[in-house]
C-alpha cells in the first residue's frame, strides 16, 4: 500500500508539467538572472583589498609581520592603516575600514568588526589562524574564535548582497515545496476534488495517505533543490562557503520546512483551495520579499523595525541558517537556526496532522 501510494504521488507530481516547470524554471532562471545581474559587480568587489585598521600597542609584533606579508602578497588582499584606538574606531564608524586588529602583545591580538560579511570573515580567519599557530607553538589548547573576535552588531546591514540573494533564492525554492504539497494533498480534499471524495471513501487512513503523499512531495523537493544547488555551485560557480555537505543539509531542512508548511496550510478547514494557494503565495513570495529576495536591505529594515517577523518568516529563518553556516561555520548560532527550522517544521506537521484527523 505504501509503495503504491508513494509511487502514484511521485508520478502525479513529476507528470504535472506546469508544476515541474515552475519548480525547476524558477531556481534556474532566477539564479542565472542574479548571476548575470550581480556577478560582474561581485567580481569587481572580490579583487578589492580589505581595508583594515591596525592598533599597535607594542612595536614589531609577529601579527603585524603576518599582516604585512598578506598585504604584500600578489593578491594584495589587505590595505592596512596604522592608527591609534580613537582614530581606528572613527574609521570603523565611518565604514572606511572593515575591522580593527588590536595588536596588544604577542599573544593578545583581537579583532573588532561592526558588521557581518565576507570581508569580515576573512579578517576573522586571519586572526583566528594566527592564534591557532601561536597556541599550537606553545601548548595544545583548543580555541574558539569567540575569544578573539568581538562582534559589535550581529544583524549587520552590509551582508554580502550577492550571496544574500542566492540564500534567499534557495529559501524560496525550498518554500515553493509548499505549493506542490497543496497541489498533491489538495486532491484529497473531498469538498474541492472528486478524487478526494473517492480516496476518503476508501478503506485507507486519511492520515496515513497524507503522510505518504507528504514523503513523495519531500522527495521531489529534495531532488529539485539539490539540482538547483549543484547548478549554482558548479555552473554559476557560486561559493557558498562553509562545509558543502552542511549547505545541502540546510537546504534539505529547508525543503522539510516548505513541505510541512504546505501540509499545514492544505489541511486548514473551511478555506477553499484557491484561498490556500493565495496564503502560500503570500508566505513564500511575501516572505521572500521581507527576507530580502528583491531588495537585500529589506531584512535589515525588518530586523530594526519588527524583528519578530524575521523570527516567524520561514524565508528569513532559512536565509539566516545559510548565512550563519557561511559566516560562523558549524557554530552554536547555526545549530540554533537548525533547531528552529526543525521545531517550526514539526509544529506545522503536528498541527496539520491534527486537522487531518479531525476531518
Amino acid at each position: 500500500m505504501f509503495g503504491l501510494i508513494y509511487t502514484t504521488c511521485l508520478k502525479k507530481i513529476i507528470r504535472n508539467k506546469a508544476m515541474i516547470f515552475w519548480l525547476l524554471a524558477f531556481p534556474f532562471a532566477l539564479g542565472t538572472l542574479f548571476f548575470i545581474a550581480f556577478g560582474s559587480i561581485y567580481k569587481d568587489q572580490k579583487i578589492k583589498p580589505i581595508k583594515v585598521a591596525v592598533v599597535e600597542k607594542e612595536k614589531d609584533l609577529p601579527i603585524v609581520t603576518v599582516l604585512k606579508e598578506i598585504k604584500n602578497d600578489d593578491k594584495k588582499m589587505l590595505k592596512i592603516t596604522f592608527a591609534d584606538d580613537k582614530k581606528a574606531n572613527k574609521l570603523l564608524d565611518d565604514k572606511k575600514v572593515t575591522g580593527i586588529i588590536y595588536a596588544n602583545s604577542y599573544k593578545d591580538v583581537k579583532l573588532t568588526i561592526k558588521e557581518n560579511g565576507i570581508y569580515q570573515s576573512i579578517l576573522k580567519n586571519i586572526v583566528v589562524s594566527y592564534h591557532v599557530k601561536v597556541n599550537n607553538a606553545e601548548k595544545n589548547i583548543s580555541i574558539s574564535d569567540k575569544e578573539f573576535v568581538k562582534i559589535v552588531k550581529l544583524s549587520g546591514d552590509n551582508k554580502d548582497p550577492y550571496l544574500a540573494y542566492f540564500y534567499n533564492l534557495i529559501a524560496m525554492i525550498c518554500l515553493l515545496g509548499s505549493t506542490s504539497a497543496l497541489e498533491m494533498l489538495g486532491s484529497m480534499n473531498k469538498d474541492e476534488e472528486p478524487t478526494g471524495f473517492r480516496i476518503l471513501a476508501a478503506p485507507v487512513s486519511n492520515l496515513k495517505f497524507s503522510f505518504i503523499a507528504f514523503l513523495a512531495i519531500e522527495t521531489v523537493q529534495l531532488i529539485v533543490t539539490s539540482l538547483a544547488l549543484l547548478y549554482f555551485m558548479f555552473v554559476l560557480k557560486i561559493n557558498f562557503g562553509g562545509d558543502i555537505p552542511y549547505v545541502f543539509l540546510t537546504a534539505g531542512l529547508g525543503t522539510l520546512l516548505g513541505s510541512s508548511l504546505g501540509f499545514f496550510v492544505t489541511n486548514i478547514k473551511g478555506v477553499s483551495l484557491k484561498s490556500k494557494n493565495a496564503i502560500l503565495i503570500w508566505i513564500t513570495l511575501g516572505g521572500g520579499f521581507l527576507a530580502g529576495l528583491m531588495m537585500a536591505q529589506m531584512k535589515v529594515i525588518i530586523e530594526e523595525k519588527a524583528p519578530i517577523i524575521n523570527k516567524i518568516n520561514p524565508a528569513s529563518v532559512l536565509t539566516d541558517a545559510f548565512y550563519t553556516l557561511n559566516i560562523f561555520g558549524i557554530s552554536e548560532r547555526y545549530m540554533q537556526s537548525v533547531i528552529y527550522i526543525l521545531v517550526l517544521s514539526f509544529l506545522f506537521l503536528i498541527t496539520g496532522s491534527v486537522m487531518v484527523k479531525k476531518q
Partner: protein
Amino acid sequence: MDTVVKVTNLVKRYKELIAVDNFSFEVKQGEIFGLLGPNGSGKSTTINCILSLLKYDKGEIEIFGEKMQGEKPELLKRIGLVGQNVAVFDELTVYENINFFCGLYIKDKDKRKALVDEVIDFVELNDFKKFYPKKLSGGLLRRLNIACGIAHKPELIIFDEPTVAVDPQSRNKILEGIKKLNKEGATIIYTSHYMEEVEEICTNILILDKGKEVARGTTQELKNMIKNTENVIVDSRNITEEAIKDIKNLSHIYKVTYENNVLTIKCNGGKHNISHVLNYLDDNSIKYDRIYSELPTLNDVFLEITGKELRD
C-alpha cells in the same frame, strides 16, 4: 433476503437547513435501490452519511449489519463508489488510475492485476489502457470513472448520479453495465434526478424532496399511488378555450392543460381515452400535427404528490 443497508430516522442539518429530514429505508441484498429526487433533495447528503464522510445529527446507519460511524475500513472494503464527477488523476494513465484506486482496497499485487484486467474488459477500455484521461471522450471518461469505483468487486456499489452530462449512447451503456453488475450479485444504490433511468433499472425506489420522503415502492406501486393512469398528448395550434372545456367534460378526463401548442390530457381510468379525444377533434374539425398516448411516469407521481416537476 439479507439487509445490506439500513438507515433509520436519519437527520442531517447544515445550520438552519435540514438536508435530510428524518427518513428511514432499507436496501436488500441483490436489489437496485433508487434514490430519486430533484437537485438539493438530500440524495448526495444521504450517500455521504452512509459512507461516513459526513457526520449526521440523528439516526442510525447499518451496513452489512454493522453500525457505520467513524473509520470502518473493513466495511468500506465491501463498498464501491461512483460519483457524479469524474474522480481520476489526469497525470495517470487509464490503467494506472484503475490500478491505484483498486490498490486502496486490494493489497495483493497479483490479485489486483487480475481485477484491473477484468474491469478494463468489463468497461471495454482495452484499447485505451495507456491513454491519459485528457485524451478520452466524455463517455470513455465515465467508463473509466466507473471502473475505478468497481474494480475491487464490491458487494455494495453506490452510483451517485453517474450519468449527469453523458450522451444518450454512453448513458445506455452505463445503465446496461449497472444491470450486469447487479446480475453478477452486487447490491446497488442508484441516485438520480432522471426518472426514466430510475424507472428502467431500479427495483425499489425512494422519492425525496427537500430532504423529506415523498413516496416509496416499486415503479408500479408508486404509479398506483396517483389517480393519473394515462396521458393523451395533442400537438396542435388550434385549441380554443371552448375546446379545452369540452375535452375536460369527456369521461375519465380530470385535467387538461394547453401550453406551447401542446395539449396535455390527464386521464383517470377508462379505456379508449385516445379514441374519445380523436373523435372530438374530428367532429369539431380541429387540426393537429400528432396525437399520442403515454402511461404516467415517475415524474407524474412526483408532480401529483409535490405539485412540481422533478426537473424544477
